[in-house]
């Protein structure tokens, strides 16, 4: 019962976060200034997702794996050059596995 209740409350809080702007955003979400701000959210979110995957452990900031950093850079540069996300993912995974298996890092 505790497990179900915890999930229900967690889901309620999560939905409130998602729906808040839909219910209360009003004219704010239509304004050009707000649109300008939200355009910057996308690169910020992406950078934070990458950075937190590399630099955060369970207890805060952690030293990143060299292989992981190289893999992310390789994926970034691959997509930058080709525009192909799947290719970036595959090349990044291969770079990570190659570095770990050959013991280069």
């Amino acid at each position, binding site marked *: 019962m505790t497990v179900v209740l*915890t999930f229900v409350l967690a889901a309620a809080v999560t939905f409130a976060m998602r729906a808040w702007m839909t219910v209360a955003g009003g004219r704010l979400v239509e304004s050009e200034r707000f649109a300008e701000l939200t355009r910057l959210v996308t690169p910020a979110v992406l950078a934070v997702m990458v950075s937190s995957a590399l630099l*955060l452990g369970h207890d805060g900031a952690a030293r990143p794996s060299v292989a992981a950093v190289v893999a992310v850079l390789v994926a970034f540069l691959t997509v930058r050059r080709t525009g192909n996300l799947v290719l970036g993912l595959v090349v990044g995974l291969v770079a990570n596995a190659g570095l770990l298996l050959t013991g280069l890092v």
Partner: protein
Amino acid sequence: MSAAAEGQLGSTPVAAPQDPVMLALRDTAPFVVALVPFGLAVGNASVGAGLTFAEAMFGALIMLAGAAQLAVVESLGRGEGLLATVVVVALINLRFVYYGAGAARWFGRARLPVRLLLAFPLVDQTFLLGEQRFDDSVELGWRQRYYATATALLAGAFVGSQVVGFAIGGGLPPELGLHLAPALVFAGMLASHLTTSSARLAAAGAALAVPLVAGVAGPATVPVAIGLGVAVGTGRWTR
């Protein structure tokens, strides 16, 4: 053929192509690949926390939020209190307020019950895809079909991989690097979003903020870092 019709996620907003379902399938595929290892990890963690299969699946379906679900599972495994767990979930999911602003804009012409329904499965991936594809010229029906397709794929992959992770109940070889898949996809997307100096500043500020604020912000690190990145990007930080 336009960039959109070819399914390339580029940096330039594109006009709506003919078939939103096919385009959503193509756009979402890399995210689906990247979601699978995460789903396996959450399923595996549910076993470790002592959850039943029904409890784990209930949590997956009612939340549709991977990081927060993992936090709940770990909290349950450690026997932490209900209030503490819910507060952590709120902090982790604070970024959904930003995403909700996007959804409110995309679906603003729909009826409120529909908008609320569409807000329910909003996650990192659907926010990023929507921002990329929902140009002002794209009509509401097209947006809804694209969004519903992407959501169905992502939710199916995430819940399905949790089922597998729960069944396996053991770890995968670390050399596969599957835990890195989401970061690789996000890095790839970032590569095509750094088109203006403001965007580059926002990204750099946000990335640097993560290790700097992690010790203070704890589970709120992600939304705080996003907020700081946006502040840097707009120049407000230096004024």
